[in-house]
């Protein structure tokens, strides 16, 4: 732990330190530059951007690009759908994972072994894209909001992470509550859940980021139902439509996207990218200590 400046720091060690700092600085630049570049372009006047040469400072500063994209109706609606799915999906996911985790952490539960195996199997076996698509069609879910939320409600990985956290809590807490006559749900709700806040924060972050970032479900299930497309999908359409006939054109690219693409120069695209990215940038550094411990917990178990 101690000895940051070692007593016998040789010249070789010093050279190593310098080289290491240089390498790490390069990593920083390679990671951050693209984001700063995108930000600068998004704040630069569209007509001027075409001339190129913008690095991390806008040349002709303007907020006009942002004003323009918020006039695009599809984007604003997509933003609401994305927020809704993030909130609803996270709540459902948290409820399911925490309850299943609690039930599995109870050594006396009869169906524990069955439940556990039943869940683990879902981690390894998947029906695949087409059967799931057909199932959704049969259940009449295509073109609805629920395609975003329902499939992801039960996640075995999240259950495992929360459960291994619960296993570390002293069982005596539950025992005494039980003697006081509390039922199993009350114990879960009043005693266990409040203690699980750190791990719940981790899982909530994973769920929320997953919901916010996913675009393929929107493309696949709701591509022809513009009332429920998400922000990521809208961004995808705009970005792909001018990329040398990107693979997004395989589908009947929405008329809206076509129109948007024709009038969306570099700066507009970058402004949308920033709008999509910023919510995550704001949230994640504050939750860093939680997700680091959550990842470690999950890795130890699985």
């Amino acid at each position, binding site marked *: 732990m101690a000895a940051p400046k070692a007593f016998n720091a040789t010249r*070789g060690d010093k050279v190593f330190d310098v080289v290491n700092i240089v390498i790490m600085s390069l990593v920083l630049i390679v990671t951050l530059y693209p984001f700063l570049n995108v930000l600068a372009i998004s704040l630069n006047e569209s007509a001027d951007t075409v001339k190129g040469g913008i690095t991390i400072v806008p040349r002709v500063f303007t907020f006009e690009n942002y004003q323009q994209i918020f006039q695009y109706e599809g984007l604003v609606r997509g933003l609401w759908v994305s927020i809704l799915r993030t909130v609803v999906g996270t709540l459902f996911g948290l409820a399911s994972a925490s309850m299943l985790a609690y039930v599995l952490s*109870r050594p006396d539960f009869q*169906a524990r072994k069955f439940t556990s195996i039943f869940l683990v199997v879902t981690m390894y076996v998947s*029906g695949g894209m*087409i059967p799931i698509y057909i*199932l959704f069609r049969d259940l009449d879910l295509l073109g609805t909001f629920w395609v975003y939320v329902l499939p992801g409600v039960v996640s075995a990985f999240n259950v495992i992470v929360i459960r291994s956290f619960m296993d570390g809590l002293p069982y005596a807490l539950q025992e005494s509550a039980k003697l006081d006559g509390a039922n199993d749900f009350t114990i879960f709700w009043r005693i266990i859940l409040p203690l699980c806040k750190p791990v719940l924060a981790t899982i909530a972050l994973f769920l929320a980021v997953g919901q916010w*970032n996913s675009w393929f479900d929107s493309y696949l299930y709701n591509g022809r139902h513009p009332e429920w497309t998400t922000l990521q999908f809208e961004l995808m359409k705009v970005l792909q439509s001018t990329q*040398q006939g990107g*693979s997004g054109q395989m589908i009947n690219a929405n008329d809206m996207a076509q129109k948007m693409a024709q009038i969306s120069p570099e700066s507009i*695209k970058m402004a949308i990218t920033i709008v999509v990215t910023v919510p995550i940038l704001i949230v994640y550094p504050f939750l860093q200590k939680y997700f680091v411990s959550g990842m470690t917990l999950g890795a130890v178990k699985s």
Partner: protein
Amino acid sequence: METLTPGGTSNKSPGAPAAEADVGKRFKKQSFWRTALQQKYLYFMSLPFIIWAFVFSYLPLWGWTMAFQDFKPAKPFLDQKWVGFKHFVELFSDDRFYLALRNTLAMSVMSLVVGFIVPIIFAVLLNELRGMMFKRFVQTVSYLPHFVSWVVVAGIVTKMLSTQGGAINDLLVGLHIINEPIQFMAKGNWFWYIVTASDVWKEMGWNTIIYLAAITGIDQEQYEAARVDGANRYRQMWHITLPGIRTTISVLFIMAIGHLMQIGFEKQFLLGNNLVQEYSQVLELYALQYGLQMNRFSYGTAISIFNSVVSVILLFTVNGIFKRVSKESIM
């Protein structure tokens, strides 16, 4: 009763064994149904989600039957025409299938190798940083791309590699390494490298988390002893840090091999275009294009089944080898 607190419970012998055993003995004669009634809240809490998982994870498996039929969406199940392995035969005689298989394997092996080694090097170097503030900052920044969607990453990568003001081309031209900008996104032979590099860029920092946690577990006295013996930093990294995380490395490596075929298709979908299709089409994209978009559901399902079966075989093989080598199982 005072010794109830199960500090380090393992999953095999769960918490509070003493108390539970007592209770168990007392109610030994109690019938299954009475216990079930007593545990009704536990059932209420789990049953809905079990049904849920059944519908959305198990029921689609039934859809695998489609691969053995000439599936017509409008018809009920009993009216479908069964055709045996027709679609598989067709699949295995399709050149595009082998192309997709080649691309899947190439990109998964590339990102397995590079995406595996880079985070280890990064974690070890990060651990050697002296300034805590700087270390924290580098770590936080390096996690950033993991949280950004592939849509955004693909947009950024395209921007960086573009011939008009893309940073990479500007840099290469500026350093006189090349004379004129390279059309990275339009050249098929660049595609695999672009995908691998984007993957490393996005996930490198995130994948260090577990290694860094393992490194914290290494006994610090080893380093001091090594320093007393005159070992320099390279030797400390090579002889203490790396061996210290050896188990972590091997477990993660085996898990990665098990998931070799499941590279997904997001990157290929978003970064690819018609010009590079020969290199970008992976099995799942192939299933999407020829299965869903052309309404050839049976054919597409056959592709998915092939992919799943190979994955499961890989997983079991790898797990079997691992079991034999280390007497441990990862599944």
